[in-house]
C-alpha cells in the first residue's frame, strides 16, 4: 500500500487518563470513547486478583490473563470484547497497521519509549509501552499516534522512529522496570463488540456478584483472596531468601492490580453518587483503599530488589495490610449489593 491510510473518523483520538492507570487502560479507553462507550463503566466493571507465577513480564502493560492470550477479553470479562497479539512482518511491517486501519480498527502498538521523541524516556531509558496508531502517511514519512500518558501526545511521528521503537530489543536497564523483553513488532488487534448494554444497577450488581465469586474461588489458579494470600507469602519468602527477581516482579505486576482496583472503586463511588446510594459510594471508596494499599507493596518491592532481606519485614507488613484492605472492601461490596436488588440502586 502507498499514500495515506487513516481510519475515516479519526482526526483526533480523545485521551483519557487517571493517575493510577497505565498505557494498557489509557489506550483501551481511547478505543472505547471512539465507540461511544464510557471508559470508566467498561474498565471499572471487573475487579479481581490473579497472579500467574512465571508469567509476569517487565512491561507497563502486563496483565495476568484469565483467558490465555486474550488481553482485552481478560480485562473486560463482562463484555463481548477480545484481542489478539499480532506480530508485524519483517518486510514492510506497516502493512499490518494499514490493513487494520482500512478495516476501521485502531491498532494498539507496543513500543520502546527510548526511541519516541515525545516520551520522557527518549534517548534515556528503554521501557515497553503502548500507543495507538491512527494514521499512516507513507508519502510524508509519518504515522499519526496517540498517547494519553503524561506528558500526553497526539500527532505525527516519523515512520523511522516508529519502526525503531516497534522493533526494539528493549535491552535490560538496571534502573528501569519495564525493560528486558523484546518489543518484536507486536501490536494488539482489538475487537470491542460494541455497543455495550447500559450499565444499570442490575447489571452492576451482577458484575459485583461475579467479582465476589471470583474472590471466593478455590480454583486451580492463584486467584481471589486465597491467591492474594499466596502471593503475599511468596513475596515475603522471596525477600527473606534474597530472591531479587521475584521481589522486583511485584512492581510491574502490581500496577495492573492497582489500576483495576482504582477504576472499580471510582466506578462504584461514581454510580453511588449518581444513583443516590451512599452504601455503594462507600463500597467504592473501600475498593479505592485497596488501590492505595498497593502503593507501598509496589514501592517496597522496587526498593527491595537491591537488598531484598532488608525489606522483608516491610513487605510482610504491607502485604498483610493489602489483604485486610481487600477483606474490608469485599465486605462493603456485599452490603452494597443488597441495596442494588430493587433495580433502582437508590436508597431512601
Amino acid at each position, binding site marked *: 500500500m502507498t499514500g495515506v491510510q487513516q481510519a475515516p473518523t479519526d482526526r483526533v483520538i480523545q*485521551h*483519557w*487518563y487517571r*493517575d*493510577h492507570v497505565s498505557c494498557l487502560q489509557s489506550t483501551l479507553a481511547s478505543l472505547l470513547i471512539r465507540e461511544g462507550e464510557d471508559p470508566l463503566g467498561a474498565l471499572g466493571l471487573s475487579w479481581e486478583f490473579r497472579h500467574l507465577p512465571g508469567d509476569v513480564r517487565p512491561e507497563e502493560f502486563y496483565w495476568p490473563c484469565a483467558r490465555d492470550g486474550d488481553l482485552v477479553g481478560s480485562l473486560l470479562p463482562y463484555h463481548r470484547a477480545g484481542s489478539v497479539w499480532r506480530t508485524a512482518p519483517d518486510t514492510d511491517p506497516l502493512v499490518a497497521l494499514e490493513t487494520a486501519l482500512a478495516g476501521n480498527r485502531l491498532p494498539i502498538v507496543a513500543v520502546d519509549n527510548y526511541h519516541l521523541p515525545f516520551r*520522557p524516556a527518549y534517548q*534515556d531509558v528503554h521501557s515497553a509501552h503502548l500507543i495507538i496508531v491512527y494514521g499512516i502517511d507513507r508519502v510524508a514519512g509519518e504515522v499519526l499516534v496517540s498517547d*494519553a500518558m*503524561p*506528558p*500526553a501526545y497526539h500527532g505525527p511521528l516519523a515512520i523511522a522512529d516508529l519502526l525503531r521503537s516497534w522493533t526494539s530489543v528493549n535491552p535490560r536497564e538496571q*534502573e*528501569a*522496570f519495564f525493560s528486558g523483553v523484546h518489543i518484536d513488532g507486536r501490536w494488539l488487534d482489538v475487537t470491542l463488540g460494541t455497543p455495550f448494554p447500559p450499565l444499570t444497577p442490575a447489571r452492576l450488581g451482577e458484575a459485583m456478584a461475579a467479582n465476589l465469586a471470583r474472590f471466593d474461588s478455590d480454583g486451580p489458579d492463584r486467584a481471589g483472596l486465597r491467591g492474594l494470600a499466596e502471593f503475599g507469602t511468596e513475596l515475603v519468602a522471596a525477600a527473606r531468601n534474597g530472591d531479587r527477581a521475584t521481589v522486583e516482579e511485584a*512492581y510491574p505486576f502490581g500496577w495492573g492490580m*492497582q489500576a483495576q482496583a*482504582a477504576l472499580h472503586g471510582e466506578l462504584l463511588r461514581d454510580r453511588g453518587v449518581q444513583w443516590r446510594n451512599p452504601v455503594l459510594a462507600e463500597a467504592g471508596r473501600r475498593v479505592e*483503599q485497596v*488501590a*492505595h*494499599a498497593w*502503593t*507501598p507493596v*509496589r*514501592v*517496597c518491592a*522496587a*526498593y527491595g530488589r537491591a537488598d531484598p532481606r532488608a525489606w522483608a519485614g*516491610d513487605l510482610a*507488613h504491607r502485604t498483610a495490610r493489602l489483604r485486610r484492605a481487600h477483606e474490608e472492601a469485599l465486605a462493603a461490596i456485599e452490603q452494597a449489593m443488597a441495596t442494588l436488588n430493587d433495580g433502582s440502586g437508590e436508597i431512601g
Partner: protein
Amino acid sequence: MVNHVSPAPRATAVRDDHGSRFHLVDLDLHRDNVGVTSSSATGYGAFNVWGNSLPAEELPSGRAIQVEDVPFTFPATGGGRPDNVRCAGQHITVEPGQYDWLYLLTAAERRVEDEIAFHYADGAVDFEPLRVSDFWAAPAVFGETSAFTTLTMHYPYHVQANVSAMVWCQRVPLVRGAALAAMRLPRNPAVHIFAATFVLRKGHHR
C-alpha cells in the same frame, strides 16, 4: 488528562511572626532523601524509584513560607543533600502542647493512605489518617491544596518539560484533647515530608 500547571506557586513568604499558634517541627535531623535537584545535577534525585526529582529552580530553598495561612520552613534544596523525610517509622519528639492539626508539605510516589501515630504525654496513642496524592502530574484526590505545581520534572539525565511535580499541603487531625509528646511516621517509603507544622488548639498557647 491532567492539565493543571500553574506558573506561580501558591505558597508565599512568611511576612510576620505568627506568635505561639504554630509549632514548626524541626525535621533536619530526619531528612534522608534527595527529592529536589538543580537542573545541572539531576542525577542526585531519588524522590521515586525511577530517580525523578522536583526542580529546585521552581521551589523555595531554606526559607520561611506560608501555605493556607500556615507557616512552614522549606528546606534547603538543590545541593544534593537530603531535603525531605522519606517515611520509615521515624519517631519525632515535639514541643508539648494541645494541637488540633498537623499540617504537612508532602508528596507521594503514587497515592498513599496510611497513618501517623500520635503519642501523648499521658501515655495515650492515637493513629490518625495520612492521605497524600501522587506527585507526578496528578490531581489532589484527597482534597489537598497544591503548595507547588512545577512546570518541569527532573529525570536522572534530563529536564522534562510539560510534566508537573506536585507538593501538597495536607493536614492530619489530632482529635484528643491532651498534650502531645511525639509522633511516629508510618513505615511507607512512598511518602515524603518536606515540612511540618502543628497548629495549637484554640485557647491553648505554647
